[in-house]
């Protein structure tokens, strides 16, 4: 079941450094939300707070609230491991596990977590996930081969299959196409449009055409100055952001008149 996300006055710190200040966003279920903005503005950082991945970096912490269907991800007793099972993530660089076959990569979420499942059930999960990631036809004859032997675009789709195999409610994508050629990018974008019917998707992208093509709503982050925390400047329907933004900084950025 796709869930909604409500971020309320979120501050993100790395040690004593305030990386993002006062971000508030409401993300509807079964929608695609794009985070855009210049490098270092904190969009990836905010994305990572949505499944508590920022804590993996030493010193990473937040203040404020992130609600998943009304439940605070940072509430007392919340286990980040359980959060990450509900909110999946795809990274910029495709990174299938090098020691595993394509098959094992898809079910890595179960295998690594030590879940015991019947072979038939696993076969079903693999087929469903690979079909969901539009990779099934290309790899169904070589499921036993290493995942690292696939092309870059195929590896990224394998990573998406791996993420959706554990049936998360939300899928976070951190610049999933930035290392891919236009054809692989198109394949992923098509995939995102299909996945929208089952998942809430949040995607960070540097490609503004991509944000305009695939997202329903867009959040523009900006860095007011060197050494200052990144801020959420504007968050609105994608059509509005790209045609008639209400803030000057947004307009400058999307029209390339930045800095």
């Amino acid at each position: 079941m796709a869930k909604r996300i409500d971020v309320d006055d979120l501050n993100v710190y790395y040690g004593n450094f305030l990386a993002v200040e006062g971000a508030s966003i409401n993300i509807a279920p079964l929608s695609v939300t794009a985070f855009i903005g210049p490098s270092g503005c904190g969009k990836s950082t905010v994305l990572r707070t949505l499944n508590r991945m920022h804590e993996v970096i030493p010193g990473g912490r937040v203040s404020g609230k992130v609600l998943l269907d009304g439940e605070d991800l940072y509430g007392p007793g919340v286990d980040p491991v359980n959060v990450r099972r509900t909110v999946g993530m795809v990274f910029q660089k495709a990174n299938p596990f090098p020691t595993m076959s394509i098959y094992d990569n898809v079910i890595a979420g179960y295998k690594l977590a030590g879940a015991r499942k019947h072979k038939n059930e696993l076969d079903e999960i693999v087929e469903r996930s690979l079909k969901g990631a539009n990779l099934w036809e290309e790899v169904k004859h070589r499921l036993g081969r290493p995942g690292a032997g696939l092309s870059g675009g195929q590896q990224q789709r394998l990573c998406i299959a791996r993420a959706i195999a554990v049936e998360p409610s939300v899928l976070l994508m951190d610049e999933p196409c930035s290392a891919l050629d236009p054809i692989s990018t198109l394949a992923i974008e098509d995939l995102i449009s299909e996945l929208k019917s089952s998942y809430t998707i949040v995607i960070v992208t540097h490609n503004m055409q991509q944000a305009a093509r695939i997202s329903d709503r867009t959040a523009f982050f900006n860095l007011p100055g060197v050494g200052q925390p990144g801020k959420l400047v504007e968050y609105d329907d994608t059509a509005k952001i790209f045609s008639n933004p209400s803030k000057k900084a947004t307009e400058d950025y999307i029209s390339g008149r930045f800095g």
Partner: protein
Amino acid sequence: MSDTGRSSTPTVDAPDPLTGRRRPVTVSALVGARLPSWAPYAAGAAAVGVALILKAVFGWEGWGTSFWTAVLVFVIGFTVWSFAVEGRRRAKDRFASTLIYASFVAAVVPLVLILFYIGVKGFSVFSADFFTKSMNGITSRQEGGGLYHALIGTLELVAIASIIALPIGIFTAIYLVEYGRGKFARAVTFFVDVMIGVPSIVAGLFVYTFLLLGFGLRPFGFAGALALAILMIPVSVRASEEMLKLVPRELRESSYALGVPKWRTILKVVLPTAMSGLITSSLLAIARITGETAPLILLVGYTARVNYDPLQGDMATLPMMVWDQLGKRAGTTSSDLTEARAWGAALTLVLLVLILNVGARLLARLFQPKAR
């Protein structure tokens, strides 16, 4: 071209495309003058020739002076020649290349000589008996005998030391890479660095004081294995740490992002990915202690008999057998026969490390992540 200090456009004789007759043709500015490919060999031959002439003229004895003269003449002569023809930048390149090749040769030649010498000296005593008999009852004037007792001792001690040290080393490395933050981790790293430099006799002395003197015990195998383990741990920590650091952070992150707990990520992602490296690092640690002698003198002693029990009585080891057969141990004498057996034991020691090395490499390849 300013580098070479020449301003005139270089020309070269080449066939004219229309007439086929050779005539001077202007060469592109991209082409610089170069020494012919046989130049280094010619320079080398000339240097040797100069050295030989000087040897004859001055009547140098031996070959040392001539050798170093040849080297010096080659380095200086070849660089000057290159400078005259090819210019400053090329000459510097030739000079640096010469030094690098020379260093390589200087590093490899002694190694090859040692292996070759041990091989020639040691192989003559190799026989089935040599590997299956002990030195029990064999005097220094007697033929026969073997290193079975010492081989057993070395294998047992190395195995015990590895069982103690490798898990500690690898777990410490996991702590340092995956969990270690702040002062405690820095302290651990510092002490590991210090321990790497601890002389082996000090480790032996430590065990001797606490175990043998402390409990009033006679030398026995396990005490030696303990000292070897102490020497092994820091090497293992350091090498394993480097291997674990090679596992990309992205792999850990994608495992966390799938909702996999940290300990399972380490167990199922980090360790398998680093497995081939960890095998290599463990082998480094084993190779470090296999030939260790000093602590064994104190802790294990030596016996000519076969002793399988590491908990009771003196044990023989290969390095101690070399020491014994050369007549260096108190109360022993040497002869041509014992000297040959010492070389045989030394060669066996080298082969043992070699076999471990090759075996570990095969094992590591088996665990290496494959692309297709």
